């Protein structure tokens, strides 16, 4: 149904707190399970990806966290160092530390320079075909457009220089819907869905990249069918009967069901809103013809007490089932 794993580069984004890192890690794990050589990269260096894989730390140098699955954490300074080594051939590489930290100031002030160093590193891995798939735990939805769109911004702002020369091949990779896709992660809640919708609507126009999938995370499975829903509401008025039968704890049991059900139905409304927008997105045209419409992949609420690796495995299991 979806060709997500046929792409070369996946940017996983979403509003903060929706499980973006877990979804990125799980997507990478599924691809690796299916025999692909995978790189997964955390962009913001907050350490969430290391937590997900339960390793102490991730660095610019990759760590093999599972067979075929290599993880790294982006560092603009290291990316610059690699870039200079590859392209500029300056003789004093040994003294790059000072240089790079000074360069940090320039990168801070000059729009898009940090972003292009980060995105450029990932595009380079794709270009060199070092991996079958590169999964990026990208910036949150509010910032991802400036991250992925950096090569375009630079192409507009920088008239000459090496960076300018370097942007074209990046754009060729980023703007090809058969190579690069953005995975928008959301939970069935108002703000995450609204942000996802806004992102989906502006993504292609502003960055040239295409949405590849929407992952709806932590979706509550329905407890009741329609007929049962009605009965469940009636049961709330028969609580005293239940208290007589199983004790005063019955109050909480009925209340819990009502909370789950009401959360679920509000979530379903938000997902309907999202579905309507997704169905109206034009599937991207590419050299190899029109690709399939953007799928919405559902990951159920896990109700797990687990953290880290266990959660990644559980989410990967459900993604593995959903993505054929």
């Amino acid at each position, binding site marked *: 149904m979806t060709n997500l794993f046929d792409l070369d580069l996946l940017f996983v984004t979403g509003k903060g*707190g*929706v499980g973006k890192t877990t979804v990125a890690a799980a997507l990478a794990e599924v691809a690796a399970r299916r025999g692909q050589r995978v790189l997964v990269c955390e962009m913001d260096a*907050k350490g969430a990806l290391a937590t997900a894989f339960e390793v102490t730390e991730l660095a610019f140098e990759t760590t093999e966290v599972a067979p075929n699955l290599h993880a790294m954490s982006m560092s603009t300074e290291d990316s610059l160092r690699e870039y*200079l080594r590859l392209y*500029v051939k300056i003789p*004093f590489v040994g003294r790059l530390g*000072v*240089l790079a930290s*000074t*360069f940090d*100031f*320039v990168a*801070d*002030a*000059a*729009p898009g320079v940090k972003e292009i160093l980060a995105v450029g590193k990932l595009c380079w891995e794709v270009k060199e075909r070092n991996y079958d798939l590169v999964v990026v735990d990208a*910036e949150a939805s509010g*910032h991802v457009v400036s991250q992925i769109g950096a090569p375009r*911004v630079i192409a507009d*702002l*920088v*008239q*000459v*220089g*090496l960076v300018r020369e370097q942007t074209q091949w990046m754009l060729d990779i980023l703007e090809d819907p058969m190579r690069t896709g953005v995975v928008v992660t959301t939970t069935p*809640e108002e*703000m*995450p869905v*609204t942000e996802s919708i806004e992102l989906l609507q502006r993504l292609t126009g502003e960055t040239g990249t295409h949405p590849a999938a929407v992952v709806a995370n932590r979706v509550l499975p329905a*407890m*009741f069918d329609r*007929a049962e829903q*009605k*009965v*469940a509401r*009636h*049961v709330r*008025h028969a*609580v005293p*009967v*239940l208290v*007589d*039968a*199983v*004790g005063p*704890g019955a*109050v*909480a*049991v*009925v*209340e*819990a*069901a009502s*909370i*789950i059900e*009401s959360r679920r139905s*509000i979530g379903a409304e938000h997902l309907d809103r999202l579905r309507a927008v997704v169905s109206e997105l034009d599937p991207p045209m590419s050299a190899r013809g029109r690709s399939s419409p953007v799928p919405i992949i559902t990951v159920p609420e896990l*109700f797990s*007490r687990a*953290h880290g690796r266990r959660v990644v495995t559980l989410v990967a299991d459900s993604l593995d089932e959903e993505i054929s």
Partner: protein
Amino acid sequence: MATKRTRAKRSVATDEQPSLDPLLASREMILVAGSGGVGKTTVAAALGLAAVQRQPGRVLVLTVDPARRLATALGLEALGNAPHPIPNEALEAAGLEPRGELHVAMLDTKAGWDELIRRHAPDAATRRAVLANPLYENITSRFVHSHDYLAMEQLHDLHATGEYDLVIVDTPPSRNALAILDAPGRMADFFGSRLLRWLTVPYRSRLFTFASKPFYQVADRILGSRFLQDVADFFVLFQQMEAGFVKRANEVEALLVDPRTAFVVVSTLEAAPAHEARFLAESLLERKMTVGAIVANRVLPPHLASPLASEAAHDLAERTGRDADGAIAADVAAATGDDPDVVDRVLHQMATRFDDLAMVAAREADRRTELAALAATTVTVPWLSGDIHDLRGLGRLACHLRGVADQADSS
């Protein structure tokens, strides 16, 4: 409803309901902080409502990015970003009894920067040149977490007007909630930075510097001298405003540690937001800033985690379902007038799914205890059915924040 009464009685018996009333009465500025998606904006708006219900005075809520329906409820869509009052009739129509005036405003980053430039530019020519510079928008929207800085700036300004007794700021969603605390300092640092000094020396002497420093050769080669020149031009203009900016940044920073200012840290009790809230509260304390209160938002009723409830669920699970005698289902069906088979399925489902939610509730209770250790007051807001998107909903939330009986619940 029966459950709510039981719970209220229980908490009154142990101690008084925690309330944000004292904080709202004693502070002039409140910053609402927390990670994204925890309901900061809604809590900020409800705090404003709580303040005007509790006492007379003029309260302003400065919000950053409200959900659309909330924005509509606050009149932000119709009335724009500038501070404007919410008419008391509108509050009364929603069943509220305001004693003060509630004003709301929305942070507008672009307009905020333009305003800053207008204020600090030494003359009209500089002002025009900055506003027309192609890098201006790009840079202001990206560097030194300009949202954070502008929120602080506006807080400073609005407080300084003397028009409000209390200003409540919904801090913007930042990648790292702490960025906001460092924003003023970073702005000042930026103006003292080596980069800026170098970029703003006259071009000819920079050529000389260029030749002597490999860094600049490399920077020039990578970025292109034309681009560096654009950046330099922009900062030459910007530097003329340095004194004004730095002075303001220092004032804003002083405001954050002012005894009249307090932070309210909002969090849900899920793992990630709670972790971030804890980190945030600890960092605030380290910086000698005041954590006035913690608001644990959208909390599941704690009695879901009680052993009594768990026993009842297990009992019910065993006595319903395919292998059971169906006696309970028959009794309930007699009371509700439904098909006993459907009732049995419903009861069985309720009983077997109970553990899921009970486990979440138990985890939340642990995290609430951890957070509560970090502030004098911790207010728990139960999970209210539905997103809050009107004044009535905000009113209910305000009741919880004040620790007073929820009128909507009792009616």
